[in-house]
């Protein structure tokens, strides 16, 4: 993951002007960003007038921005079963509208990389997921470099940094560089055509997204470098995680039984994780009409693999815990050449029994 892409455009956005910019973006897009809801930072679509409430202080939201590319519940097709005038059965189907363009605003660099990891699954391989692509092509990613890593962050264990730009169309870097005080403005740097278009749009200009003062070029470079040089305490402690090869031989290891005893088989880790993507497909409806949709499912749920007839290949917790961590640290690596984790730390914050990736990755090294 070499880091030094060439910016396509640079601008300056004042902190005070963020609200106006978001309101301008909201005119043509659904804007999703971090907001405080009853004391918890959540990533969600901003309601009208909520643009000023965007919270860029919390390092990461409890839930992840993957909702913007892979909604928890996504209608695939509307159907209608009926009979024609002759009494013969008919079936008509209709694709639902995938909605307006989306701006994912205020996510962290790790979350932007996570979206690229999802793109690898849905946009490459034998099949291209058309529904995902249609939605994805309308998404603009505006990330914010982290001024201060959280206690649970470990992005550098995967070669990322709090100032990374991979996967982002635009990255906002605090003008005064990292540190608790973010300063009065952000450098808004576009790395893609889509990002450049966003920064240069009439709406953005009118909302106060200004040209970068000529004198600030070097200051901006310094700020960006400082963000990219930031280390995370947990990532520092763990070091680079590179356990894929080791895991090849650990499928039958008794470790999985021991470590999974604490698991409560909920789906918290998989649902807050920005790179987990497993889904199910189900139908809803009554009186012959309804919707077929996909929905987030979790390999941690006991019934995840239960087949018609009752056979369940993963009835034991050890098998499901093993599956999750093998998928993240071995199976995905075999198929796509990198790990299915960006070190965001959400599993560390949310698992009620602390059964999360840093724990397992660290333990696996010692096996």
């Amino acid at each position: 993951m070499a880091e030094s892409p060439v910016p396509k455009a640079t601008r300056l956005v004042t902190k005070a002007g963020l609200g106006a910019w978001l309101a301008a973006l909201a005119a043509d897009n659904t804007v999703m960003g971090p907001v405080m809801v009853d004391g918890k930072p959540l990533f969600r679509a901003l309601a009208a007038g909520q643009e000023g409430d965007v919270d860029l202080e919390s390092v990461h939201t409890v839930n992840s921005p993957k909702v913007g590319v892979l909604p928890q519940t996504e209608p695939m097709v509307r159907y209608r079963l009926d009979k024609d005038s002759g009494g013969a059965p008919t079936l008509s189907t209709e694709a639902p509208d995938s909605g307006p363009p989306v701006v994912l605003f205020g996510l962290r660099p790790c979350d932007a990389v996570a979206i690229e990891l999802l793109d690898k699954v849905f946009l490459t391989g034998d099949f291209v997921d058309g529904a995902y692509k249609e939605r994805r092509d309308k998404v603009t990613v505006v990330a914010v470099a982290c001024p201060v890593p959280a206690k649970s962050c470990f992005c550098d264990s995967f070669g990322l940094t709090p100032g990374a730009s991979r996967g982002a169309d635009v990255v906002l870097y605090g003008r005064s560089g990292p540190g608790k005080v973010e300063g009065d403005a952000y450098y808004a740097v576009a790395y893609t055509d889509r990002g450049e278009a966003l920064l240069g749009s009439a709406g953005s200009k009118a909302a106060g997204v200004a040209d970068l003062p000529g004198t600030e070029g070097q200051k901006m470079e310094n700020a960006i470098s400082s963000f990219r040089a930031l280390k995370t305490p947990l990532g520092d402690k763990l070091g680079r995680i590179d356990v894929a090869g080791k895991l090849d031989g650990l499928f039958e290891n008794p470790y999985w039984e021991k470590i999974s005893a604490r698991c409560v088989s909920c789906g918290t880790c998989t649902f807050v994780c920005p790179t987990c993507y497993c889904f199910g497909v189900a139908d809803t409806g009554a009186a012959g009409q309804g919707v077929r949709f996909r929905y987030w499912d979790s390999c941690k749920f006991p019934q995840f693999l239960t087949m018609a007839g009752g056979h369940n290949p993963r009835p034991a917790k050890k098998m499901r815990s093993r599956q999750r961590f093998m998928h993240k640290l071995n199976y995905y690596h075999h198929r796509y050449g990198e790990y299915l984790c960006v070190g965001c730390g959400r599993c560390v914050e949310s698992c009620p029994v602390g059964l999360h990736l840093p724990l397992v990755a660290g333990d696996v090294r010692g096996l």
Partner: protein
Amino acid sequence: MPKNLAVDPKKMKETETALRAEAGKLLGEGAVTAFLGHEEGWDGLPVPFFAATADEAKRLVWNPLVAFNLAKHLLDRLDGEGKLGIVVNGCGSLALNRILKDRRFPRERLHVVGVPCTGVLDPDKVLALPDAERKEVLQSGKVGAEFFLKRCGWCDAPNPVVYDSLIGDKVPEEAVPPLYPRVAELEAMKAEERLAYFQGLYEKCIRCFACRNVCPACNCRECSLDQWDPLWLGRAAVPSEQLMYHFIRAFDVAGRCIRCGECERVCSVGVPLMELNDKLMKDITELFGVQRPHVPADIEPLGQFDMGDPDVEGSH
């Protein structure tokens, strides 16, 4: 708030030593095949642990952060004949009794070690403190009331209600008047306002089922909400299904909730799940005259039927 709420780390350390000894003895003698307690997990968080040998018993912990309710994990070991050990404080024993009185685990297969309790701290809050402060709190036990688990604030059962052996002396019990602070506010809302409130509440629910999975009262072999045939709970995370999930669960545990609040504590998005449970508990006290609905009884009010019940035809 109980008057005796306090955390005495030194005393807890002594309890820990005695617990390790007792569990080690039970395991060494083969009296139990495994002992369910806590061990130190990530970053000092006590997590459920089945010690399987006398040596493993040395990993058991008892400290100010032993908040996780263990009893539900017994259901992982339903298969087999072996006896199990388990350590419980007051609320831990309520959870255990819930499982026992729902007849989900045989009492004869258990050796229960009880620990009278004067309070446990919220691990999330303590572990979030800067290192120096955290160390100070865990060593001295000196901490503000807001660091205790919510359930300590209404605890009237500090002594285990079921045990085979006890570590430590019983602590004085206090009658704590059942206060449901938030319920009065909810009851004061108009119906539309209340509906909007609950819809907003559950709208952030991510349907992870952590609340259901840690709840000792939610102990069905197969949760009806997991079933496909019939499909009670649609898999779509839309407002109607969210309400369905939470209302059904609240009604299913009504009368059996032990008011441990674990559901709320493990919820990653912060849904105040106890509000509805408290309301139902208050109703049960008022409608059925049950004084301490959170203490498991042999038969719960909603599990009883009497020919004199007012809704039985001809009873009045």
